[in-house]
C-alpha cells in the first residue's frame, strides 16, 4: 500500500502528456468527448469505408483489432483460413481511433481549457448540486450520442453502467469494510426477481405470473418503485446473513455468504411459481439509458456520501482496528450492519435494472461465475475507492467485450491480467483514493 509518495518523474513521454493535459477540467474532457462522438456520427461511416474497414468500429476499434488477432490465433491453432490482407485492418483501426477520438479529444480538450475552466469556476458559485447536474447532463449527452450508433453499443453501455453500480456496492463491503462477501450475486438475483415480480406481475401478461393486474399507459412511472422494492427485498435477505455474521469477527462472513449464494440460487431454481430454472421473461422495456444513468449516478452519489461521512468512515476504523473503533465510541455492529444492508440494497437495484435490460431473468445468471466476475471488477479497480470501482467495472467490461472474438482465450487473458495486478498492486489499481465531488467537477487550477 504505497499510496504515499509516487516518485516524481522528470521526463518521459507519459509525464509530458500528463503535464500537457493537467489544466483540463472534467468539463473540458466532456466537451472534447461530445465533439468526438458527434464527429463520429458525421464522419465515422465515411472514414471507415475510406480506410477499408468492413464496418464502422464499435468499441474504439478494439473489437476490430481483436477480431483480426483471433483470426491469426485460429489460423495457428486450428489451421483455419486467414486472409493476410486483413492484417491491414489493425493499423487502419488505430488510424480510425486516432482520427475520430484521440486527436479531436486532445485538441478540443486542450483548446477549451480556458473557457472550460472559466465555466467550471462560474458554476462553482452555485451549490455543488447545480455543477454536478450540468456536468452529468453533459456526460449523459456524450453517452447518448455514442450509443445511438448501434444497438450493440447501447446494450454494452447499459450493462457497463449497471456493472459500475454493482461493483461499487460490493466495494462497500469488501473494500471499505474489509470483509469478504460472496453473496452479492445472490442479492442481485433477489433484486432482479423481486422487481420483475413487481413489473411483470402487475403490469404485463406472462405465462408464469399470469395476466396484468393494472393496465395503464403511464405504468413505467412505477419503475423506480419496482427497483426500490427489489433493493429493499435484497436488504431484507441480507439481514439473514448480517445478524449471525457480525456477532463474531474474522472471515466468517465469507463462508456464510457463500452458503447464502448457493441457497438463493437453489431457491430460485426450485420455485416453480417464479419460473423455476427458466426464470421470468417478458419484463417491460423500462430500463432505458437515461433511467439507468440516473439510477447509477444517484447510487454513486449516496454511496460516496456514505463513505465520506464520519458514520461511513467508521467502516474503515472497524476494518483497520475493530477494538480501537469500539473504544472510540463507534457502534461497530450497527455500522457493519448498515453498510452491509446498504450494499445489498444497491446490488438489488442493479439486479432490477439488469433484469429489465435483458428482459429475462433466470437463476443461472447468478452463479459462482458472476461472483468471480464482480470480484474481479472490485479488486482490479481498487479497494476502498469510488474511482477504483468505476475504473474496474468499465475496464473489465470493455476488456470482456473487446476480447470476445478470442472466444475461450478471453478467459485466460483476463485472469492472467488480474493475477498480475494482484501481484504488483495487491489492493487494485486505484485503491484508497477519496472521491471528492467538488474537486472532480471543479476547475483545475494550475500555476
Amino acid at each position, binding site marked *: 500500500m504505497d499510496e504515499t509518495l509516487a516518485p516524481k518523474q522528470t521526463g518521459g513521454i507519459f509525464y509530458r502528456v500528463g503535464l500537457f493535459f493537467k489544466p483540463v477540467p472534467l468539463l473540458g474532457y466532456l466537451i472534447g468527448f461530445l465533439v468526438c462522438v458527434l464527429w463520429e456520427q458525421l464522419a465515422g461511416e465515411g472514414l471507415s469505408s475510406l480506410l477499408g474497414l468492413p464496418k464502422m468500429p464499435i468499441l474504439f476499434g478494439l473489437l476490430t483489432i481483436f477480431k483480426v488477432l483471433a483470426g491469426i490465433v485460429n489460423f495457428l491453432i486450428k489451421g483455419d483460413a486467414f486472409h493476410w490482407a486483413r492484417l491491414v485492418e489493425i493499423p487502419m483501426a488505430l488510424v480510425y481511433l486516432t482520427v475520430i477520438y484521440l486527436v479531436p479529444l486532445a485538441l478540443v480538450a486542450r483548446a477549451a481549457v480556458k473557457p472550460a475552466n472559466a465555466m467550471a469556476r462560474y458554476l462553482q458559485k452555485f451549490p455543488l448540486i447545480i455543477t454536478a447536474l450540468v456536468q452529468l447532463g453533459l456526460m449523459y449527452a456524450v453517452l447518448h450520442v455514442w450509443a445511438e450508433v448501434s444497438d450493440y453499443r447501447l446494450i454494452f453501455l447499459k450493462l457497463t453502467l449497471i456493472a459500475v453500480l454493482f461493483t461499487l456496492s460490493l466495494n462497500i463491503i469488501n473494500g471499505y469494510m474489509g470483509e469478504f462477501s460472496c453473496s452479492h450475486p445472490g442479492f442481485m438475483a433477489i433484486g432482479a426477481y423481486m422487481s420483475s415480480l413487481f413489473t411483470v406481475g402487475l403490469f404485463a401478461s406472462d405465462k408464469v405470473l399470469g395476466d396484468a393486474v393494472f393496465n395503464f399507459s403511464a405504468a413505467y412511472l412505477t419503475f423506480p418503485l419496482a427497483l426500490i422494492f427489489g433493493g429493499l427485498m435484497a436488504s431484507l435477505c441480507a439481514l439473514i446473513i448480517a445478524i449471525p455474521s457480525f456477532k463474531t469477527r474474522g472471515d466468517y462472513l465469507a463462508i456464510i455468504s457463500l452458503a447464502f449464494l448457493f441457497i438463493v440460487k437453489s431457491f430460485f431454481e426450485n420455485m416453480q411459481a417464479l419460473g423455476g430454472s427458466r426464470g421470468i421473461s417478458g419484463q417491460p422495456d423500462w430500463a432505458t439509458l437515461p433511467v439507468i444513468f440516473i439510477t447509477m449516478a444517484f447510487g454513486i452519489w*449516496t454511496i460516496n*456520501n456514505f463513505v465520506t*461521512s*464520519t458514520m461511513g468512515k467508521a467502516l474503515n*476504523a472497524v476494518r483497520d482496528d475493530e*477494538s*480501537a473503533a469500539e473504544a*472510540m*465510541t463507534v457502534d461497530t455492529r450497527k455500522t457493519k450492519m448498515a453498510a452491509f444492508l446498504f450494499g445489498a440494497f444497491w446490488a438489488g437495484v442493479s439486479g432490477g435494472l439488469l433484469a429489465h435490460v435483458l428482459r429475462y431473468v433466470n437463476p443461472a445468471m447468478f452463479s459462482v461465475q458472476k461472483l468471480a466476475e464482480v470480484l474481479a471488477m472490485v479488486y482490479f479497480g481498487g479497494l*476502498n475507492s469510488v474511482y477504483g470501482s468505476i475504473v474496474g467495472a468499465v475496464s473489465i467490461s470493455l476488456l470482456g467485450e473487446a476480447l470476445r472474438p478470442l472466444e475461450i482465450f478471453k478467459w485466460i487473458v483476463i485472469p492472467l491480467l488480474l493475477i498480475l495486478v494482484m501481484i504488483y498492486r495487491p489492493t487494485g489499481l486505484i485503491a484508497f483514493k477519496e472521491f471528492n465531488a467538488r474537486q472532480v467537477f471543479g476547475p483545475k487550477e494550475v500555476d
Partner: protein
Amino acid sequence: MPLLHVTDMSHNFGGLQAVSGYNLSLDPGQITGLIGPNGAGKTTIFNLITGIYRPTQGSVEFDGEELVGKKPNETASMGLARTFQEMKLWRHMTVLEHIKMARYSKLSYGLWGAFLDTPKRRLEERQTTDLAMEYLKMFAVDQFADQLVVNLPYGAQRRVEMARAMVIEPKVLLLDEPTVGMTPDEMMAMIEVVRKAHERFNLAIFLIEHRLRVVHELCQHVQALVFGQVLVEGTPTEVQNHPKVIEAYIGQQEVEF
C-alpha cells in the same frame, strides 16, 4: 461518591484467575497509577472496566451507573476514554479522520444524513472538523492533519492517540503505558501533555505505567498489582520502597548467569 468505583472485581479466563478481588475508587481530578510486572493483569483490568471483557464477579460503577454488561462503545460514550499500549491507530485514515471518528457517538444526523448529504450532516461534519482541529492544535499535531497516521513519527502518533481519546470529552481517561518505547525527551513531553490535559479538563486519570519516573511525576496514588491482586497501595514513594513490591519485581533469589 467517587467517579469510578470498582468493587470486588474478579475475572478468570477458563480457570486462570487473571484478576481477583480488585477495588478502585477514583475521584474527579485524581491521577491513580497502576504498576506491576508483565502479566500481572493490568491491561485486563482496563479491559474489564471498559467492557471488552465481562467480569465474572464484582461491579464497576461510573458516575453512579453500573458498567458491567455494557459494550465498550457504550462505556466510551458515557465518558470513559482509553488509550492502548500498542496504540491501535487506523492505518488507512488521516490524523484528522482519527479525531473526527472519536466524535461518532455525538453525531446525530443518522444514516439518512450519511446517505443523502443533508444540511444537518454538513453542519455537524463542519462543527466536528473545527473541534477536531482545535484538539489537534492542543496536542501539537495539527500540521499533520491530512497525513496518514502511519507516516507520523512515533511521538506524534502517541499524541494523536491521546487527542483521539480526549476528543470524546471523557471524565475518566485510562492510559495504558503512554510512554512505552519512548526516548527520555519524548517521555518528558508526554508527561507534560498528560499533565496539561489533566489540568485543563480536571480529568480523572487511571494510568498503567512501567517507568517509575512517570508515576512519580504524575500520580498521587499508586496500586501495585501482582498476579491479579493488589499487593500494596499508597503514595508512589511508599509503594516503590515496599519490600513486597521489590520482591515481586526483582525476586528473592539472586539470578545466576
